[in-house]
């Protein structure tokens, strides 16, 4: 049996949109052997999802296969008859997607959804199939498989749902499992456990996995070989170690370098010459920001989309301080309360107890006039620039607005805004553009310009790089570092990404379920974490 399990030869796919045809995959060729985990890394738009859907011959009507062959066990899947395809899908090739919440039928118990595969492909009876489904749930590390099998998807956590998807994929006893960003929608700790599971399943079942992700760290953790997809082309393909250590193309090299790494032994590019972890002595003045015993309660659940649906979400007795011209990182998973802290600092939420003192002024005791003045001193950059820029305003209007609000004349505001945009690397040609005409990185630059245009002392960075592609992330981090040096401001960095913390922060506060579980200098916390939760977070991050 020398036949490879999967062989792609010269595969090219394009999408038709109106009269235009946009190529998505160009001349892709590779083979996979049995028992191998092949990881394909690519940024959004690189065509990696299309690659997976082409393999199972499940493409939208406007997709055109312009050439090439997909051979699975020697059979050409692109020319397969519908019956043959059905016999292959779910049985020989199974799939796991990015978002298990939408991939599972909301109206069907998960056990039945798994059992369905057994009934279809192995002609098992209902009870045998259901028994097997529960066994499979046990195999993928679900604690009470019987109970979970009787649950509906909405009753499970994201991690559990993804395990159900994996159990469903295993139910067909497939030779190949295609995984499309299977960990991206999950929290850091859950991600790490899921990657462990996939590695473990590969060992136990001799699975072959084609794993596609934007996250080089995740791919590196489990792949035997790594491929790099860029703009529909396979730039590079080789053994994982080789690709990571001796990348052949400049793009891959940039990709690897751009990942801010958590272990100090292999510093990321931009760290050179920067001493991140030592707290610089202060001029002895009062701290810029002093938060004391802060507690926040919500009476209304789901205050914003994706917010907590629990009845009460709280920050409990949180204290920290931020010195001038320093960077303090608040770290935690989603739901830890880190965004709540940011909103309280902006006085979008009222604290239930405790005080926030910014630049010597107590936030809760301010008159409205002084609050307005203070708002110029405290600015925020959001995670998602698409959401933070009003799509109905031009770049110039967006950046000039804070100045206009502060009372500047229209001409002066526009001149200053244009200068600020120049400072973040956006030339005059951008002034009249609309947000939808910008790339993700350009949008984030506009958002940064808007935050800095009033000359703030404190800028809150709410996951400023999370929604960006890896290469853009590095550039934005560099921009933020430069602006901080030039404009002598402080950052409050809110993130779940420890690598970014390592990169630019001086101090770190670890939040869990609304409480501070550890704080200190970045160097101290990272080298000697005292709390087990911090250790777990660090381990999960080192997994990459």
């Amino acid at each position, binding site marked *: 049996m020398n036949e490879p399990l999967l062989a792609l030869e010269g595969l090219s796919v394009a999408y038709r949109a109106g009269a235009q045809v946009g190529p998505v995959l160009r001349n892709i060729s590779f083979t996979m052997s049995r028992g191998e985990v092949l990881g394909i890394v690519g940024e959004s738009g690189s065509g990696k999802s299309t690659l997976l859907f082409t393999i199972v011959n499940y493409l939208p009507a406007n997709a055109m296969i312009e050439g090439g062959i997909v051979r699975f066990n020697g059979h050409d899947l692109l020319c397969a008859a519908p019956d043959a395809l059905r016999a292959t899908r779910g049985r020989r090739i199974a799939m796991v997607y990015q978002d298990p919440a939408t991939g599972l039928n909301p109206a069907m118990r998960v056990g039945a959804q798994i059992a369905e595969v057994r009934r279809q492909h192995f002609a098992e009876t209902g009870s045998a199939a259901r028994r097997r489904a529960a066994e499979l749930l046990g195999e993928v590390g679900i604690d009470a498989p019987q109970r979970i099998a009787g649950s509906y998807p909405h009753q499970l956590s994201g991690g559990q749902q993804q395990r159900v998807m994996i159990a469903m994929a295993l139910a067909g006893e497939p030779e190949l499992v295609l995984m499309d960003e299977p960990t991206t929608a999950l929290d850091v700790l859950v991600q790490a456990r899921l990657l462990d599971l996939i590695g473990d399943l590969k060992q136990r079942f001799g699975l072959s996995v084609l794993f596609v992700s934007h996250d080089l760290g995740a791919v590196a953790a489990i792949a035997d070989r790594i491929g790099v997809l860029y703009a529909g082309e396979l730039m590079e393909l080789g053994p994982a170690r080789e690709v990571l250590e001796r990348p052949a193309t400049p793009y891959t090299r940039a990709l690897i370098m751009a990942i801010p790494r958590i272990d100090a032994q292999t510093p990321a590019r931009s760290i050179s010459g920067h001493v991140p972890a030592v707290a610089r002595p202060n001029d002895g003045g009062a701290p810029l920001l002093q938060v004391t015993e802060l507690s926040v309660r919500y009476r209304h659940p789901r205050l914003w989309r994706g917010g907590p649906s629990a009845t009460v979400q709280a920050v409990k007795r949180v204290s920290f301080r931020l010195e001038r011209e320093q960077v303090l990182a608040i770290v935690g998973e989603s739901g830890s309360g880190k965004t709540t802290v940011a909103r309280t600092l902006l006085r979008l939420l009222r604290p239930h107890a405790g005080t926030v003192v910014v630049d010597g002024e107590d936030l809760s005791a301010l008159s409205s006039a002084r609050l307005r003045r203070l708002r110029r001193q405290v*600015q925020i950059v959001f995670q998602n620039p698409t959401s*933070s820029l009003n799509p109905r305003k031009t770049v110039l209007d967006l950046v000039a*607005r804070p100045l206009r609000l502060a009372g500047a004349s229209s001409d002066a505001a526009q001149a200053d805004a244009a200068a600020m945009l120049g400072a973040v690397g956006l030339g005059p040609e951008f002034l009249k553009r609309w947000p939808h005409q910008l790339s993700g990185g350009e949008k984030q630059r506009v958002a940064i310009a808007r935050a800095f245009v009033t000359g703030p002392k404190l800028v809150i960075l709410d996951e400023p790089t999370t929604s960006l592609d890896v290469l853009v992330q590095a550039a934005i981090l560099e921009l933020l570092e430069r602006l901080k040096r030039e404009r002598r401001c402080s950052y409050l960095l809110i993130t779940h990404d420890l690598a970014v913390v390592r990169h630019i922060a001086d101090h770190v506060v670890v939040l869990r379920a609304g409480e501070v579980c550890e704080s200190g200098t970045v160097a101290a916390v990272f080298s000697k974490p005292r709390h087990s939760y911090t250790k777990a977070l660090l381990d999960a991050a080192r997994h990459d």
Partner: protein
Amino acid sequence: MSTAAVSSKLRDPRSRLGHNAYLRIGGALTAAVLLVAVLGLIWTPYAPSAVDLLHRSAPPAAGHLFGTDQYGRDVLSRIMAGAWRSVSLGLAATALAAAVGVPLGLAGAYWRGWLDTLMMRVIDALLSIPSLIFALLIVAGLGTGHAQAIVALGIAAAPRFTRVVRGAAINAAEQDYVTAARARGETTLYIQYREILPNVWPPIVVEASIFAGFALMGGAALSFLGLGTQPPAADWGVMVRDAQRYVSQSWSPLVAPAATISLAIVGFNLLGEGLRDRLQLSERPADE
């Protein structure tokens, strides 16, 4: 490419040609209806109430394109003369519904909280009564007539309008640009009307266009029931009501205004649908 992008491509959109056809046909019909309504104010082929006893219930012919009714009045002239009443009713009721619905919907979406919850509860309750019955209730209070019908239909539609505006605005109100505006200290009026409203006017315009058709239908229905425009004044609903009784003598006095009403409704509906598709197309960011 993300999974979401693939799945959005799986939903192969109807061709752009189709959208433009909606917009073109709807726009043309609406424009024609408006033109007839205005023209009818200044000129009609015959005087709309001129009785011609020699040509009663005449079928369509060269002299009377749509025939004559049971009194020998020219049906086309009556349709033209009644057009303004029917069309203005639809537009005025829509304007009234929007005038109530836009501020309430924006405020509810922006503030949320208990006031919004209360407002939505009231709106749910109001929507649990069919809008024609709601309009009838108001007519019962206000009495019959053209102006009363406008108020009745406008008020009856206001809850639905509020809900549409709120539904569209809630998404916009949750975006970070609204948080950013609050964080830099913008007034609530600025945020509601300058940050949120520009992002929600497409659904409002679409809803307004479609509702204008429904209001026209509702107005005609009220007139048809004898509760809207009062004779001797005539709009299209009154014409259908009158003609119904004499349908065995001639069909054109019934079918002509009925077809006109339907065409007008189709026009407003298609215009709305076309606008919906068109606006959403240009809404879509370039990178999707």
